């Protein structure tokens, strides 16, 4: 083997070794790298009880209810299979809409609802002018349903 070839193989081995180490490390931390759990994950018990975690999903159309005389809002979050109710008191972000993806940070309450102290809007990767969105809507293709957000 020429020295050049040796260096080439050496570089290759370093890269392969680092890649292997990265794969093993990422697999070990798979759970911790999940930014949020879906309602199905929560019902299946993936999210530890009594601890804080993030719940992600789509806000169901027409599920947003405001308590009169307080900042508190309730809405239902779904991953199309299971649904959970989120209770939140605070300012909702600009992109919060019914039908859009959200991520709520908080904990499970005894009655099975989710008490959030932070709600983030999850934006999907669709960009279009308002006219196009309106046109799609009229043709019966609802936009901003955030399907991409939920498939991930």
């Amino acid at each position, binding site marked *: 083997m020429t020295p050049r070839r040796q260096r080439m193989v050496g570089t290759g081995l370093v890269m392969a070794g680092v890649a292997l180490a990265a794969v093993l490390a990422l697999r070990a931390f798979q759970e911790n*790298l999940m930014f949020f759990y879906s309602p199905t994950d929560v019902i299946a018990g993936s999210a530890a009880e009594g601890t804080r975690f993030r719940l992600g999903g789509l806000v169901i159309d027409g599920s947003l209810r405001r308590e009169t005389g307080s900042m508190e809002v309730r809405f239902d979050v779904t991953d199309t299979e299971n649904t959970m109710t989120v209770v939140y008191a605070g300012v909702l972000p600009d992109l919060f809409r019914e039908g859009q993806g959200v991520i709520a940070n908080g904990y499970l309450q005894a009655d099975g609802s989710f008490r959030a102290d932070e709600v983030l809007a999850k934006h999907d990767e669709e960009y279009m002018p308002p006219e196009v969105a309106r046109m799609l809507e009229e043709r019966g293709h609802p936009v901003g349903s955030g399907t991409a957000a939920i498939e991930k």
Partner: protein
Amino acid sequence: MWTWFHKLGSPPHLYRLAGKLAPWLLWIAIVLIAVGTYGGLVLAPPDYQQGDGFRIIYVHAPSAWMSMSIYTVMATASAIGLIWRMKLAFAVAAASAPVGASFTFLALVTGAIWGQPMWGTWWVWDARLTSELILLFVYFGYMGLRAAFSEVQKADRASAVLAIVGVVNLPIIHYSVVWWNTLHQVSTVTKLDNPSISMDMLWPLLVMIVGFNLFYIAILATRVRSEVLGRERNARWVGEALDDLLPENRVTA
């Protein structure tokens, strides 16, 4: 083909070639970035959800893109330098690092500015944002490691190993939004067959991406020139090149 390659490996040739190309590339880049900025800020329609807020994409996405492609250049040049003992490849890698770090910083800052109103937070520790931040730290580590050696050759080799090891982060950044649940949305443009963005919003973005790339190459050419001058400061051709630049300083023999 090989003579061309060998010529590129000759410092005085590269010095002159880079000097000729740099101003042209820079002007084309400035024109493209100006056109892209006008297209993005004025011509493109507002987004149906985000209104005008989405326009930060015209800086954010190209910067994020550059942060990764410059790293690819840096790591490839480092590997070429290590394997073929090509000094100029190390010069390219060393000259790229600060530019790549700047684009990474720009991507992180513009992302945070967009995230505050849209997501409701400046920063979250999701896989995409965290891996991009790690990329910035790898750039810093590369530059710091280089600065720690007084001998250029040692700095070249040690920092090249770091650059090559850091490559593992690139696929993690790119696929983070696919492999894990993240707050960051998945890619819009790379789905080339069917990008999720309308044409009149897409073209300024593509113009910006080409402009950013040319801007990088122009800056790289200039930085490589100064890098080469420093490395070859004892060579005869450097003396001659400097004499051409500063005739009044010519040492009369």
